[in-house]
């Protein structure tokens, strides 16, 4: 399902399933493994003779790409793990596989909880059409996607879901069991700050019970401060530069060009990138200081963006507002003490104490101060210097 443009943490399937099982949701027995031997040991422990081995990568379309293997013996679990582990799949290296007991499926349902920014509702979505490609499910003559919009923050009572499900006129599914599963999914999505929680498929097993076979969980990163376990997982997924940026309290985006970029504010940053492109320059990275500019923050930010060796020049574009810009300029000077090389820096600083900031910076080698409002002037100065 398409959803909003909010920035998300994609939770790995094994962790998502573990979190969901604490809501009483029926997830298949299973565990993650990093080696073929460990995978075999998990299969042994699970018992039975039929297993699924799944590559743990944060992207959809895994089944089609060969990342999900059905195995009829412990030996074939070992083989499947060997095939998957250490190899690239859909652009991701497979470091772990999930080994689960294979369950006998009678029918496949799609279930989702989506925070819909366009309508400002939490949509509960269900489809009985089955299959893997909900995105391509056409509305056609028969309604295939059923949607229940819920007011954000509201509790979703099971009777409301029950009533809604009756409209679908589906007969061969235990709607009472399905309603409880959907209510638990809604509650989990709310608790976990999920922007998207998708169960595809939610299987009806041959004995009529339900099981969450696959699971896609995307968490709003602004919710991480109240999700300590997920916050730790997120930290571990970051590169060392991204981690340093996060600890500084700034946002950092690595790019492919050779100009380091620092701005205060994302819109100003994007505008600066647009102007760089208009002048034939390409950014190596982009760092947004946010609103709380201090000497230490600016020093850390400049050290961070000048670290990659491909950075040949730098533009700093700050609108300080009430922040003391003399502090920012001291941060620039301090950073340049720790950085080697003669790379040009163009600095446009406006705000409280701007004159003092300009006076300090103009004494520094390789720093070019722009004293006007127009970012174009800063970019064209840098373009000249880079020639």
């Amino acid at each position, binding site marked *: 399902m*398409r959803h*909003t*443009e909010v920035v998300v943490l994609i939770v790995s399937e094994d962790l998502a399933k573990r979190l969901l099982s604490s809501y009483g949701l029926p997830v298949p027995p299973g565990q993650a493994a990093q080696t073929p031997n460990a995978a075999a040991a998990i299969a042994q422990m699970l018992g039975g003779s039929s297993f699924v081995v799944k590559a743990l990568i944060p992207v959809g379309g895994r089944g089609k790409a060969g990342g999900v293997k059905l195995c009829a013996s412990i030996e074939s679990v070992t083989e499947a793990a060997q095939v998957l582990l250490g190899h690239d799949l859909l652009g991701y290296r497979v470091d772990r596989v999930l080994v689960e007991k294979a369950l006998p499926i009678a029918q496949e349902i799609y279930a989702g909880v989506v925070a819909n*920014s366009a309508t400002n509702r939490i949509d509960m979505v269900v489809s009985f059409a089955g299959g893997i490609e909900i995105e391509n499910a056409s509305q056609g003559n028969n309604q295939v996607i059923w949607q229940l919009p819920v007011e954000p923050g509201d509790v979703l009572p099971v009777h409301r879901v029950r009533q809604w499900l009756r409209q679908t006129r589906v007969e061969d599914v235990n709607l009472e069991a399905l309603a409880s599963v959907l209510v638990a999914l809604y509650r989990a999505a709310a608790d976990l*700050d999920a922007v998207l929680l998708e169960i595809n498929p939610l299987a009806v097993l041959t004995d009529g019970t339900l099981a969450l076979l696959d699971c896609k969980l995307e968490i709003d990163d602004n919710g991480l401060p109240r999700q300590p376990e997920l916050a730790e997982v997120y930290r571990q997924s970051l590169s060392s530069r991204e981690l340093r940026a996060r600890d500084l309290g700034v946002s950092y985006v690595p790019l492919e060009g050779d100009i380091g970029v620092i701005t205060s504010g994302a819109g100003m940053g994007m505008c600066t990138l647009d102007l760089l492109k208009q002048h034939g320059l390409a950014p190596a990275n982009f760092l947004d200081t946010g609103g709380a500019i201090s000497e230490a923050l600016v020093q850390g930010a400049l050290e961070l963006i000048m670290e990659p060796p491909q950075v040949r020049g730098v533009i700093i574009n700050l609108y300080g507002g009430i922040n003391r810009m003399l502090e920012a300029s001291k941060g620039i000077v301090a950073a340049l003490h720790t950085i080697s090389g003669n790379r040009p820096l163009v600095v446009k600083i406006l705000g409280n104490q701007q004159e003092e900031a300009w006076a300090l910076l103009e004494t520094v080698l390789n720093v070019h101060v722009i004293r006007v409002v127009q970012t174009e002037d800063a970019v064209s100065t840098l373009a000249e210097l880079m020639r």
Partner: protein
Amino acid sequence: MAAFWVDKSTRAIVQGITGRVGQAQTHWMLAAGTPLVAGVTPGRGGQVVEGLPVYDTVADAVWKDGANASVIFVPAMVARDAVIEAIGGGLQLIVVVTEHIPMRDTMEFKARARCAGVTVIGPNCPGLFVPGVGKLGIMPASIFRVGTPEGVGVVGRSATLSYEVIANLAEAGLGQTAAIGIGGDPVVCTEFVEVLKLFEADPATKGVVLVGEIGGSAEERAAEFIATMSKPVVALIAGRAVPPGRRFGHAGAIIRAGGGGAEQKIKALREAGVTIAETPSQIPGLLKQRLK
């Protein structure tokens, strides 16, 4: 009747007034002549900040000082509660400056504000500046050209880029009737269209500048309304050089497959009769041409 939500009858409070940012911004809001009457920080009732009484609850500020508007600087994790408290207290205008509020929290207070008929601006926004009345939020007063009876309205998603646009307008001799920052998050409580309606209705506003950016579909929705407007609109869309799928500080500024790109926004705006500026400094010239 206030043209832009605030006027001389506005009695605003600052929620989170004892914090570092709240306190500093209170100073600058008062310096800009803003009618602030009190502050609220739970647990700090009885203190005085910048000459304003501090209360523990919004209800106290309403009861004792007749508060009817609020600017919120509280930390992200308690912002939802602060907004809901303000809505419950009967305030009519709430500006949420706080950034990094979880999206589901914003969705919740947006829904409650709609139910209650309350205007919430933001979150993650610089608020509004109305020359002659003051400012609710953090826009620097120094960039504005004030004292002109007529002028242009500015509405933007990004704070600092809007400041650069406003400073360019002021340098070119164009005064402002109001500047309103709606915020950079994927869910904001007041959208472009609601602000554009005020500019269209305000007789002193002769033209409008819209500062948009990639991500979401707010600009496309704005274009639909602009097509019905009588006043000229010039727009700048930031992020044309931004590669898809990357986040650029604003949680809203990311292009996903099938939406949010600059080109389709520009196309929609052009078709609605908007003049598109390539750079901030082109805006005053383009607007002057349209105002002739």
